[in-house]
C-alpha cells in the first residue's frame, strides 16, 4: 500500500532514503513468484488473480504476463477496492480509489490476492471480507512484492518478492521500475 500511504492521511511529500529493488530485481521477483504459483497449484487451472487497488493492480497484470510466459496459460485478472470494507472508516478519511472489477465468478476458484506492500494486514483483512461478497473461493493465497513486517492481524503472505525490515514510520514505495524506502515529510 505504499502509494496510498504516501498520499494519506495528512498529505506530505515522499522522500526516498534508499532504493531497495531496481527494475531487474522486480522483474526477477515477479518471474519467481509466477513459478511458485504454478508449482504450488500444479498449473493454473482454476487460478485467478485479484489485484488490490491501487498498487496491487499493475503488479497483478505483470504477474499474469509472467504466468503466461511460464505456463502458456492465461489467468483472469480482476481488481478490488476495499475502501468500503476497511475497519478505520470514521477514524481517518477513507475514499474509494477506483471501481472494483471482478468480471468472473470466484466460487470454487483459487484466488491469488496481489498487493504491492504488506504492512499491518488490515487491507488484506478487508479484502478477504470483500471477496466473500463475490462468491466462495476454494482457497485464497496472498502475493506481495514487499513484506515490511509490523502485522496487527494473523495474516501471512504465500508469495513474497522481498522481506524488508522497516521502521513503522517509514514508507515503502513500489513503482514499475523499482522499490524505494523513505519517509513522508508533512506539509
Amino acid at each position, binding site marked *: 500500500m505504499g502509494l496510498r500511504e504516501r498520499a494519506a492521511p495528512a498529505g506530505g511529500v515522499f522522500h526516498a532514503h534508499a532504493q531497495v529493488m531496481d527494475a531487474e530485481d522486480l522483474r526477477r521477483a515477479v518471474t519467481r513468484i509466477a513459478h511458485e504459483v504454478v508449482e504450488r497449484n500444479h498449473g493454473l487451472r482454476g487460478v485467478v488473480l485479484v489485484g488490490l487497488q491501487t498498487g496491487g493492480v499493475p503488479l497483478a497484470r505483470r504477474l499474469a504476463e509472467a504466468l503466461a510466459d511460464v505456463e502458456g496459460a492465461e489467468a483472469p485478472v480482476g481488481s478490488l477496492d476495499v475502501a468500503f470494507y476497511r475497519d478505520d472508516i470514521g477514524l481517518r478519511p477513507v475514499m474509494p480509489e477506483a471501481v472494483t472489477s471482478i468480471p468472473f465468478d470466484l466460487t470454487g476458484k483459487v484466488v491469488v490476492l496481489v498487493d504491492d506492500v504488506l504492512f499491518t494486514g488490515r487491507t488484506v483483512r478487508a479484502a478477504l471480507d470483500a471477496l466473500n*461478497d463475490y462468491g466462495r473461493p476454494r482457497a485464497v493465497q496472498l502475493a506481495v512484492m514487499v513484506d515490511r513486517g509490523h502485522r496487527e492481524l494473523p495474516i501471512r503472505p504465500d508469495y513474497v518478492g522481498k522481506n524488508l525490515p522497516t521502521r513503522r514510520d517509514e514508507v515503502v514505495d513500489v513503482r514499475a521500475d523499482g522499490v524505494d524506502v523513505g519517509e513522508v515529510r508533512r506539509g
Partner: protein
Amino acid sequence: MTATHLLSVADLGADGITEVLDVSDSFVEVSERPIPKVPALRGKTVVSLFYEDSTRTRLSFETAARRLSADVMNFAVRGSSAAKGESLRDTVQTIDAMGVDAIVVRHSSAGAPRQVAAWVGASVINGGDGWHEHPTQALLDCYTIRKARGPLDGMRIAILGDIKHSRVARSNVLAFTMLGAEVTLVAPPTLMPPSLDGWPVAASHDLDDVLPKADVVYVLRLQKERQSEALLPSLREYTQTYGLTRDRAGRLADDALVMHPGPMNRGVEIAAEVADLPCSVVTRQVANGVAVRMAVLFLLLGSGRQGLDGADPADA
C-alpha cells in the same frame, strides 16, 4: 465531528458534484454484485422523515442506507405524534436525541431541512422541500446523463413543463449549469417562474423549436391540480402544446435522451409509448438513484469528510 449536510446543490459546487458522481461509480458496481451490500456504515442510523408522500425517494434512500449496512428508521408522519400536532422542532429533536447519524427530510415548506439542520447534531439531507430544491434528484440526473452521454459540459438540456412549482427544476438548473450545460426552460407563461433573473438559462414557449437542438429533454411531472388553479386551459391543450408526444419524440436527435423524475402522468406530459422508447432513461434514473444516494450517505457519514464540497481532506 462537525455534522455536515446536503441541503442545496449550491452548497456542493461543481467539484462537489463531480466527486459525488465519481464515488457513485463504485456504488453502481456494488449494486450489481450477487450480494449488493457493503459494511461501510455499520453502526450508523439513518432516519427518513417524510412530511410529504413519496415512494421512490424514500425507498431509494432506505435501500441505499441498507446497502451500506446502516440501520434505517422510517418516520411516517401519519400515525405519529406529528399528527397530534407536535412541532417540527420537537419531532426532530426527539429523533436526534435517540442518537441518529443522518436525517433525510422531506417537507412541503421550502427551507425546512435547513431549519432542521440548525436544530440537530445529525447530518441532514434535503429529500425535497416545497418548491425549493431536491438535490439528490439533481445528482442522480447528472449521473444518468454523464453515464449515458459523457460529461455535461456544452450539452444542451431542455427542461420541459411546470418549472414554477418544481423543486426538481430548481436543483437541476443549478447542477446542470454548474457542470457547464446550456439549459433551456420550456413552459407555458403561467408555469414559468415570475422572474428568471440570476438564472443562467434561456427560456422558450415553443417546444417544437427547442426539441431538435436538445441533447436531453427533461420532462417534469404536471400536477393535475394546476388545471383547477386556472393555470392551464385544459390538460388536453397542455399535451398538444407542451406534451412529449410520439410525433415530437420522432423529431429528437438520434442520440437524445428523454428523462423524467417520476411519477409520470402517461398521456399528459409524456406519451405512454415515448416513456418506453430506448431513448428514455427513466428506469436508469431510478437505478442510479440508489447508487448516488449511497455515495451521498457514504461521503457524509463514512468518508471522514467535513463536507461535500469536493475539498481534499488532506487540506483540512
